[in-house]
């Protein structure tokens, strides 16, 4: 680590320690309010309002603690149950939602120990640097105070100026130790907070379920849209052409005796129509599952893809063999989309695709030397990749500073999750 980095991180941690103390103290009135609200909830009407109100305050405070912990490098997920439908503050539904959520009570249990830990660790974070600073600044301090002796560090008391100068290295040492340990103290505080404020194993599972519900809904939606598109394409494309083909041949059949020249013209037309129908079907098949993917697997299909994009593209792969069909397909379309983005928007001159397998997941990296500045919230393409990968618990990360280069890294868990991703009928 760069020396400036640890000083910056340390100073930031010291500041957040300074902030932690008043925040921790704030826990105590919140605890008092909570106890009062609990007592008041016996009173009909008032209790319905008091407890939810106080809980909202407590949650805001807890959220702040979670955010600060996240900044200290200890992410804490919000454990709360989603609010029920048609719940209004003051209503029974809302009250029940608050009271039955274990996270409400865990927040409450955190308030006092959290305050103690917050003040103690915050004070410790501050004390070391302040004591160190005192040592560094002792000489001018001493002179301005005009006292005869002073106590500092290992040399205690200090009586001569020579001894006084010894406090300088001691102070510097203590100051640097204080700054160096400050981030660890903050992280320790954050870990302590996570014991109470993080989701329990149960809540973790519940969050996972709601996450899966969202990705499943996305997948189902995407699949339904895809089927609709295929149906429409078949209906408006190949099907119409085949009907017209039949008609043309029928007409030619009638004309073949009386007007052989006309019949021949019609037959030529029929041939054109059949070619067009085939082209339609080919195009459609490519959109559903590219033949080269079926024939050559991901490796060959990505190589074919690289040949088809308008800029020179290199492909490097290290894959152990064929992957499961659904994973292969998701990976292919994700790479195709990322490459299309690279060639469409970035004015890149060259692009690279790298594929490798880490044992548990497939990693795909698509990079280009274009303008950079790609933004997933701006491009529907990148969002589409995220959704496509999310169906397999895959992830996408994007690095695209203005001026480039853009690097899209996609990961698809496959070895472990592949049996689950095999489409099954009936139970879906």
């Amino acid at each position: 680590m760069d020396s400036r980095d640890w000083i910056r991180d340390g100073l930031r941690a010291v500041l957040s320690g300074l902030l932690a103390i008043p925040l921790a103290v704030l826990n105590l009135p919140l605890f008092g309010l909570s106890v009062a609200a609990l007592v008041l909830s016996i009173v009909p009407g008032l209790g319905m309002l008091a407890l939810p109100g106080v809980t909202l305050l407590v949650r805001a405070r807890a959220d702040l603690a979670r955010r600060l912990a996240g900044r200290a490098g200890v992410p804490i997920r919000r454990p709360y149950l989603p609010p029920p439908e048609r719940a209004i503050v003051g209503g029974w539904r809302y009250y029940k939602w608050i009271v039955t959520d274990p996270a409400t009570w865990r927040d409450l249990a955190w308030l006092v120990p959290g305050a103690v830990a917050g003040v103690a660790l915050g004070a410790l974070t501050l004390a070391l640097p302040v004591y160190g600073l005192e040592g560094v600044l002792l000489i001018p301090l001493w002179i301005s105070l005009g006292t005869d002796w002073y106590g500092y560090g290992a040399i205690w008391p200090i009586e001569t100026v020579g001894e006084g100068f010894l406090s300088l290295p001691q102070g510097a040492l203590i100051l640097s130790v204080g700054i160096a340990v400050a981030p660890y103290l903050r992280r320790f505080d954050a870990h302590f907070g996570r014991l109470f404020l993080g989701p329990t194993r149960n809540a973790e599972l519940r969050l996972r379920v709601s996450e899966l519900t969202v990705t499943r809904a996305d997948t189902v939606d995407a699949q339904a849209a895809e089927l609709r598109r295929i149906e429409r394409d078949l209906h408006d494309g190949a099907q119409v052409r085949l009907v017209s083909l039949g008609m043309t041949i029928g007409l030619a059949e009638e004309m073949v005796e009386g007007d052989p020249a006309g019949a021949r013209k019609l037959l030529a037309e029929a041939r054109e129509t059949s070619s067009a129908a085939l082209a339609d079907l080919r195009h459609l098949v490519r959109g559903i599952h590219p033949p080269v993917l079926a024939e050559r697997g991901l490796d060959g299909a990505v190589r074919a893809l690289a040949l088809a994009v308008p800029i020179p593209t290199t492909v490097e792969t290290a894959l152990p063999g064929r992957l499961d069909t659904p994973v292969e397909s998701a990976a292919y379309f994700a790479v195709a989309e990322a490459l299309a983005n690279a060639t469409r928007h970035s004015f890149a001159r060259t692009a690279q695709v790298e594929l490798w397998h880490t044992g548990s997941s497939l990693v795909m990296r698509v990079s280009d030397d274009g303008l950079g500045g790609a933004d997933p919230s701006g491009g529907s393409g990148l969002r589409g990749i995220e959704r496509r990968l999310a169906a397999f618990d895959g992830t996408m990360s994007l690095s695209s500073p203005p001026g480039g280069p853009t690097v899209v890294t996609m990961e698809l868990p496959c070895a472990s999750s592949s049996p689950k991703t095999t489409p099954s009928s009936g139970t879906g």
Partner: protein
Amino acid sequence: MRVVLAEDHALLRDGLTRLLTAHGCEVVAAVDNGPALLPTLIEHRPEVAVVDVRLPPTFTDEGLQGAIAAREQIPGMPVLVLSQHVEPLYARELLSDRAGGVGYLLKDRVSHVAQFIDAVRRVASGGTAMDPEVVYQLLARRQSPLSALTTREREVLGQMAEGRSNGAIAGKLFIGEKAVSKHINNIFTKLDLPVSDDDNRRVLAVLTYLNA
């Protein structure tokens, strides 16, 4: 002309046999799966092999692999590959032995009987016949080593890739045959393809085109 046919759909196999026979070809053998292809080709040594890319038992690219393997065993054996779709990647693999006598066409080109038979003859006599669709896909690309070529030279190269002779290119582009050979010489110079007895310069130019 003696032809070996590899096609798994009985309907298409019969149709192709009929079509080839009607145009004076003799279908000496017709196979319906990948593993039988290579031994049959080695046994019969046909003047041209017409092969479907996707064959049983794997239904992947067994036909293509069989054709490439056959050309390793019998160098320069003319092979015309038919497929339901075209892939520049496959075209490149077919041409990678740098010899002529290679064709790669979409299956539906068969319906243009005269053009199809023409392509079979061209391949049999050592020429190339790339599907216009492959050529089109490559032309759609923006930047490449081909950027040194003029538009007209690219057009000529595209026609060469489809396998046309100088005379045919002249007719197609409404220019004189002399102009065509001038363009072709320019292409060879710009793509740095010196005269050589071992390599077919037209194939090399097309390969450069495919690799671009």
